């Protein structure tokens, strides 16, 4: 009489990732380093976001052999990315038994109008959001975990901060509204009323909220936690830095001890060069912002 693939099991796994760091990896060696450094999960992808940015072209789901090799190499949960709307990539990853799927703007979208119907899957999904309305639309589609989009591959935290503040601020605003105003607010947010009501009552999203997009230093990781994120995704920030293993450990430590400046300071020492950062305005001028993918 046991049940599988329930929403409680999906959000439950995200609950167990809280306070932790999920690291982008492109091969089994990186996955081992991530696990050794204290990552609570790894995200398998073809190229880290900063390389996707540099190389251009179409970015797709990672090679399945690589994902399988990563699953073989580590005992922590393995996540993998699919293109927005590419439900067959998701079917394939479910078949491979990845632990979580990220329907991600970092890859080239496969559908310009529709996200995946995530309620139709047993495997849990995480999706990016830039504001509360977007987060609630993803939850309505079945996402069991939300992350800020930030601006992946830039090593610049400013967009993740903007998105976290928009989501957390949006939740506070909903809580302050009288019940009769929730319907029109749902319309403004372009999200279903039931989901909006649930957030107003709970005072938080009905699923865990993590930060992604631009974390490069232990201080960045602590900043996002202090702003309300319940855990961190780190992409290029680790394997594009001078000393990935030390930086990974430091970001893990700063995520746990985010509110203890002494610990964050200690974790920040002796890490060598961080990844090179990108100015958002320059990318925007080039039309190169990934966060505008998805709706």
């Amino acid at each position: 009489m046991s049940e599988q693939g329930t929403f409680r099991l999906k959000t439950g796994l995200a609950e167990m990732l809280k306070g932790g760091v999920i690291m982008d990896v492109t091969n089994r060696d990186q996955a081992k380093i991530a696990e050794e450094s204290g990552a609570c999960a790894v995200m398998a992808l073809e190229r880290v976001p900063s390389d996707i940015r540099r190389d251009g072209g179409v970015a797709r789901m990672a090679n399945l052999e690589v994902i399988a090799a990563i699953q073989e190499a580590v005992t922590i949960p393995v996540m993998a990315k699919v293109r927005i709307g590419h439900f067959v990539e998701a079917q394939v990853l479910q078949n491979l038994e990845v632990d979580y799927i990220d329907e991600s703007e970092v890859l080239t979208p496969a559908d310009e109008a529709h996200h995946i119907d995530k309620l139709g899957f047993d495997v849990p999904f995480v999706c990016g959001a830039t504001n509360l309305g977007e987060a609630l639309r993803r939850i309505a589609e079945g996402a069991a975990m939300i992350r800020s989009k930030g601006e992946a591959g830039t090593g610049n935290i400013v967009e993740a901060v903007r998105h976290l503040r928009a989501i957390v601020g949006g939740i506070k605003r909903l809580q302050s509204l009288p019940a009769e105003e929730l319907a029109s607010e749902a319309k403004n947010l372009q999200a279903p009323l039931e989901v909006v009501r649930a957030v107003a009552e709970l005072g938080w999203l009905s699923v865990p909220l993590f930060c992604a997009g631009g974390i490069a230093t232990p201080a960045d990781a602590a900043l996002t936690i202090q702003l309300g994120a319940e855990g961190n995704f780190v992409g290029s920030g680790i394997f594009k830095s001078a000393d990935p293993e030390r930086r990974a450990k430091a970001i893990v430590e700063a995520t746990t001890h985010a509110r203890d400046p002494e610990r964050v300071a200690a974790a920040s020492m002796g890490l060598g060069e961080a990844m090179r950062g990108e100015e958002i305005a320059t990318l925007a001028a080039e039309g190169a912002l990934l966060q505008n993918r998805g709706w």
Partner: protein
Amino acid sequence: MARGGPIRAGVLAAQGGFAAHLGVLRRLGVEAAEVRSGAEIEAVDLLVLPGGESTTIAKAIARDRLGEPIRRHVEAGRVLFGTCAGMILCDRNHLGLIDAVAVRNAYGRQAQSFEVELDIAALGERPLSAVFIRAPRIAEHGAAVEVLARHDDDPVVVCQGSVLCATFHPELTDDLRLHEYAVALCQRPDDEMKESGSVAR
């Protein structure tokens, strides 16, 4: 309670499902806080080791030198409640707080995670909804370990002295009885707690 006054609970917040445990304890009216240091562990009557990634939490315990404070907590007869990864951390291969060996991810990946109703005599007749997420299995245990519940013959709730462990996540449902049971353990007399108490090392 051992030191008089209301029970103070602490949930190890190194990584994992600490927020859900805090929510349950507070719903039970227990004063509960996140703990991340030896001094904070020292100050609580009930210590919860939550689920999460056991490798990640074990590394944090080593990095932050929390192993000794956790062992002292149990040696003093204070109650420790470990769930899922928290149970793994109590086993012979980790902190050695119960005489048992856990096998990690024993049911498989997330695809094999499941929910099931469990009969637990100690909690009354109504079954408890149990959420198993990438759960461990208790492969073997010594005679000092009391088995409070089984699923398919595997022990899933066990107790030794003041250490209570579940291989699943009671903090993810609205049924608070296992947490109530842990809180009630804090009210047992001290000598009873130490009797079969630590340690398997």
